[in-house]
């Protein structure tokens, strides 16, 4: 699936075969779609890895249901280490890894790898906070009924934290909108590339502004959706 999309690079198709200005609205649309695509996929994968990581971080903590101090300390430091690398450096640093996974280091799909990697530790800490908000009494009640760790995770921790986790997803996605624009500047595609190639390299202020405007709309939309879903679940429980 990945190969299909990269093989057929629409951006270069448009600029080489057709006149510039006529296709600008099309390009804006396409870049927007690329941005949404990058953000969506990397948010998804950052939770695939970040959520279990958060669960391990929380449950291996001192006094928790799977207390394991060495594991907790090691994972914690790895998470911190990755978080402390600036995104733009991470982007360059993992080019070999990106090539290994996607086959190339430029384009939309290639951006997903560094975006996901940067977001995983962020997600882990975010979800960790959500899980730690849960009243210890609930875990204790489950323990008193004879629940095992797996049951406590799947029946208490996650369901209780869902509204808060969803707000975290919105925060993550919004962060990734910013990061994806940054990746765009170094050839990652999407609105970042659009803004850079037209706005910066060709002095097209109008396109730059349009890109910024779309980014704002994207961020607002994500936040709105996150709040809405989270509140809907909370309302049901109220």
């Amino acid at each position, binding site marked *: 699936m990945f190969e299909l999309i990269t093989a057929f690079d629409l951006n270069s198709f448009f600029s080489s075969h057709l006149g510039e200005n006529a296709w600008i609205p099309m390009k804006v649309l396409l870049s927007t779609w690329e941005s949404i695509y990058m953000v969506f996929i990397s948010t998804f994968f950052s939770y695939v890895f970040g959520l279990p990581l958060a669960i391990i971080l929380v449950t291996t903590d001192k006094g928790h249901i799977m207390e394991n101090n060495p594991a907790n300390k090691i994972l914690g430091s790895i998470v911190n280490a990755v978080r402390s690398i600036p995104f733009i450096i991470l982007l360059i640093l993992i080019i070999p890894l990106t090539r290994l996974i996607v086959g190339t280091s430029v384009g939309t799909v290639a951006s997903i790898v560094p975006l996901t990697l940067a977001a995983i530790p962020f997600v882990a800490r975010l979800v960790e906070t959500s899980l730690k908000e849960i009243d210890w009494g609930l875990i*204790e009640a489950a323990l*008193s*009924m*004879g629940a*095992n760790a797996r049951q406590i995770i799947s029946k208490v921790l996650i*369901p*209780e934290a*869902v509204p808060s986790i969803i707000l975290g997803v919105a925060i993550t996605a919004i962060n990734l909108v910013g990061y994806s624009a940054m990746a765009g500047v170094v050839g990652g595609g999407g609105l970042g590339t659009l803004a850079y190639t037209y706005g910066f390299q060709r002095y097209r202020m109008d396109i730059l502004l349009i890109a910024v405007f779309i980014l704002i709309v994207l961020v607002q939309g994500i936040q709105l959706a996150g709040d809405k879903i989270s509140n809907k679940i909370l309302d049901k*429980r109220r």
Partner: protein
Amino acid sequence: MIEINNLTKVYHTSAQDITALENVTLSVNKGEIFGIIGLSGAGKSTLIRCINMLEKPTQGSIIVDGQDISLFNRHELRIARQKIGMIFQHFNLLSSRTVFDNILFPLEIARVPSSEARRKVNELLELVGLTDKATGYPSQLSGGQKQRVGIARALANDPKVLLSDEATSALDPETTRSILSLLKDINRNLNLTIVLITHDMNVIKQVCDRVAVIAESRIVEINDVLSIFSNPQTPTSQSFLNAIMNKDIPEGILQRRNTDTADTISKLIRVSFIGASAGEPLISSMVQKYEVKANILYGNIDHVKDTPFGNLTMELIGQPVLVNEAMDFLFENGLEIEVLQNV
């Protein structure tokens, strides 16, 4: 049903070691409601949490239904815990689940087949009178209703023992009474052993058969409830009793007292009575017999498990000889007498 032997629990904190329980030994009989009373920080929660191993004892053994659960491995412990229900002061219901699903929760944990589990939940909803709230969420319930869900949930796997850690402390007196009577019904109908913790002697009075008084990490007194009420052995027990007995006489009453005349004296006494020798008939026959006036100033009458007990503060007025004879009469008839003021 529960045997606790030489239980000691020390919490190791970074600042210091805290001994929460020291050499606690007690046993709870099958089918009784056993109360544990003590001031805040005495170690009550620690004690009850050791019974289902939510806290690991530092020393000592805990035998529940013939098995020393302090020796169990994790798997055995999980199985054992399914048969030890627990209810909590703050209910600890899952906000993500409906009332029905909250009660279903322990059955899911025990992997009870779905149809059987659902039948059981409906039964329990009926038992605690919340059938109409089944599809609601805990946040839509009052405190008393939440605790009823907590009780239903605790009973789901047919436990042998129910542990209650201050289950009524967050409730008003009326609701407390209804929750306690529910517990009492369950105790009778299911022959369920209940261990309950409280700092309120009223709770003990209403439902317990026996009570352990805990002070500063140690058990200072264990007795049946009636004996504790009639004859508390330790200052701790006494102060718990005073808190609900209102033994302190209001200032105003002392000031309204009569003064002595030439040939009569007035004595302020307090008689305490328990059981069948209810005070008032005795006092009226004393008045008839000895020509003394009994001016009742203040009193408390209450019941512990259907046995009346209480105290009356009164002024006896009459000739000195007669007043003394009247007091002897009361004493001989089994009342306890305390002279508060000799005028």
